């Protein structure tokens, strides 16, 4: 099997594994597998969202005050960066469908670029929190405007846990993108076989969607309360 594929060079891009009958069945299985994996991710983040829901309803005012200390402008810019990266990811998948390898690489690099910008901005925000003594675990932790420092710490614990978990997924995504770029350069993908690009796109969009929930839930709470 392997030697046959090497002889063709092109045949390798098909890469039909022995347990499948057709390329369609293989692509279909991979896509379904990725969707199910994303369901597990929803449940994984779900535990943290449940904790968030409970503590926000227990301490609405403290959460609003703590939320107001986050930098909405930077958060909004980062949201746009991430949405842009999702757009370039879609374009990479489209280039995959059309079998245009140079375009796949171009759009994957753009996606990678936006992803890294997002992570850089995030790192800047975390440093800022550290300098403002808003990191739980800091002896000097203090949030202005409330006596309830415990629940304030809870908000920032959730903030760091949720954005941290999200960022970890971004880092994994950056790794996947790098892998895809290298594989595309080797000529692995074509119109017949671009499944890895396709399902990595699903993953990237999922991580993007998580942020779409995190941004309002963490940054914009005080906007719901009467001033």
């Amino acid at each position: 099997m392997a030697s046959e594929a090497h002889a063709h060079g092109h045949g390798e891009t098909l890469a039909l594994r022995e347990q499948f009958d057709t390329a369609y069945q293989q692509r279909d299985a991979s896509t379904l597998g990725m969707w199910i994996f994303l369901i597990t991710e929803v449940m994984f983040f779900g535990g943290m969202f449940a904790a968030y829901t409970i503590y926000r309803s227990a301490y609405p005012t403290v959460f609003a005050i703590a939320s107001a200390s986050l930098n909405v402008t930077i958060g909004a810019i980062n949201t746009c960066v991430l949405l842009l990266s999702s757009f370039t990811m879609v374009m990479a998948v489209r280039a995959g469908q059309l079998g245009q390898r140079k375009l796949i690489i171009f759009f994957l690099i753009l996606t990678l670029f936006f992803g890294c910008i997002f992570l850089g901005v995030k790192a800047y925000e975390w440093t800022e929190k550290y300098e403002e003594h808003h990191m739980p675990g800091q002896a000097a932790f203090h949030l202005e405007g409330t006596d309830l420092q415990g629940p304030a710490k809870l908000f920032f614990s959730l903030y760091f846990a949720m954005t941290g978990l999200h960022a970890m997924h971004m880092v994994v995504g950056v790794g996947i993108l790098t892998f895809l770029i290298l594989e595309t350069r080797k000529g692995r993908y074509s119109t017949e076989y671009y499944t890895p690009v396709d399902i990595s796109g699903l993953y990237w969009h999922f991580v993007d969607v998580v942020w779409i929930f995190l941004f309002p839930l963490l940054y914009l709470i005080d906007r719901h309360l009467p001033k």
Partner: protein
Amino acid sequence: MSTQVLQERQHYLNNGYSLKSWLLTKDHKRIAVLYFITISIFFAIGGAFASMIRAELITPAGDLVSSETYNKLFTMHGVIMVFFFLIPSVPATMGNFFLPIMIGARDLAFPRINLLSWYLLIAGGAFAFFAMFAGGVDTGWTFYTPYSTTYSNTYVIATALGIFVAGFSSILTGLNFIVTVHRMRAPGMTWFRMPLFVWANYATGVIQVLGTPVIAVTLVLVFCERVFHIGIFDPALGGDPVLFQHLFWFYSHPAVYIMVLPAMGVISELVSTFARKPVFGYPFVAFASVGIAVIGFLVWGHHLFVSGQSVYAGLVFSFLSYFVAIPSAIKVFNWTATLYKGSISYATPMLYAFGFIGLFTIGGLTGLFVAALGLDVHVTDTYFVIAHFHYVMVGGTVMAYLGGVHYWWPKMTGRMYPEGWAKLSALFVFAGFNLTFFPQFILGYLGMPRRYHAYPPEFQVLHVASTAGATILAIGYIMPAIYLAWSLRYGEVAGANPWSASGLEWQTPSPPPTHNFEEIPIVTQEAYDYSHVKREEIEVG
């Protein structure tokens, strides 16, 4: 099919003998064997901890081990048995081996992910072993906060990491099964022609995929709490320890169904084969599996009746816990109805199936006792609860596991096990099990709390009975370990279909070729159709 071909025929076992051909295999059958060896070792270790617990409890005074050691013993017994034996037990071994064959596929959809899942179990096990040898962990397998996050000085983090990693092994197995059932069925293998074992493993996959990530994130939070003191479960910062119990049981109650649903699938196969009748009410049994998977997610609050949870929530959880008993009862009734006017043979797997039906019924009915709001207050955290879930987990799952191992042994190894020894061991297991755990119902009802290593002298008779039973049970478990190993070399050579069973796995040679079938079968009949299965050479029972 004849035996003379057996010598030169290529099958999955003689397809390479090197260590590499096993450790890097992508063949679901070989991976199943790897799992089988691994979890047998875990079972032996978990059993050793249980023996030490039972030995301590012979006398009322806490004299054999210190209370600290005792806490570690029951914790590690629970952790090993639940996360490293019961959860992978049936799906990762028999499910892995037979699910693809039963639906006429050459392999699972993702063979490499299947191998990865085994390595994840090994990695998780390595963390747990590290914790065990470095000094153990004493929180109980439930890791309740704030004890686990603030006060315990034992290896909580290493153990939690082990469970976290092993959890991903379970997720990947479930994911693989779901995709395989959806996308890899042979031509003609419709959903309602699938064996009920496949339905059960499919439903289990759904729970694994939806539930396990929640325990994973819960353990991440426990980790953060212990290391960074983030306060999620710490009342001093406004956090709530009961939130941990909710998150933990949101997974760990459905996890009970991860352990028992595949076992029920095994029983459906056994009852049908050895009664030589189709399972009565096939669609009801199939949907009962799915029903248990769905409703099982809505009952977790019955573990929190004494936690200060609102009474109204308690009422709803109590009602739903009664409700989830219905699909389980449907299965028991349908198996019984299958036996009616069946042509029953009493081979060892069937003895285990009978054991399962009886013991699971007791375990299930006592589950209703503890799901009742009032009675639960009396028996919470007593030996009654211990006895209840051991009837389900050991009397249910382990019985079905052993039944399945005996049933499929000729297919997996190409050899028969010694029938006489096997029947004797089934008898030991059944008698030993009941003597071990029935006295615990009485102990618990009289007020013996769980997790105590010293107790009032009036409880001694029942504790001694329980320990005596555990000894018999241990003999019942050691016997198969010996005669099954013996049979690998000296057992009678098995034909393709020694039980005259109807499933696709019996239509291919024993042991199966690497790609399972010489030719992918085209399925034209319902599951459990015995009309054209002729009685085979070996008659048992």
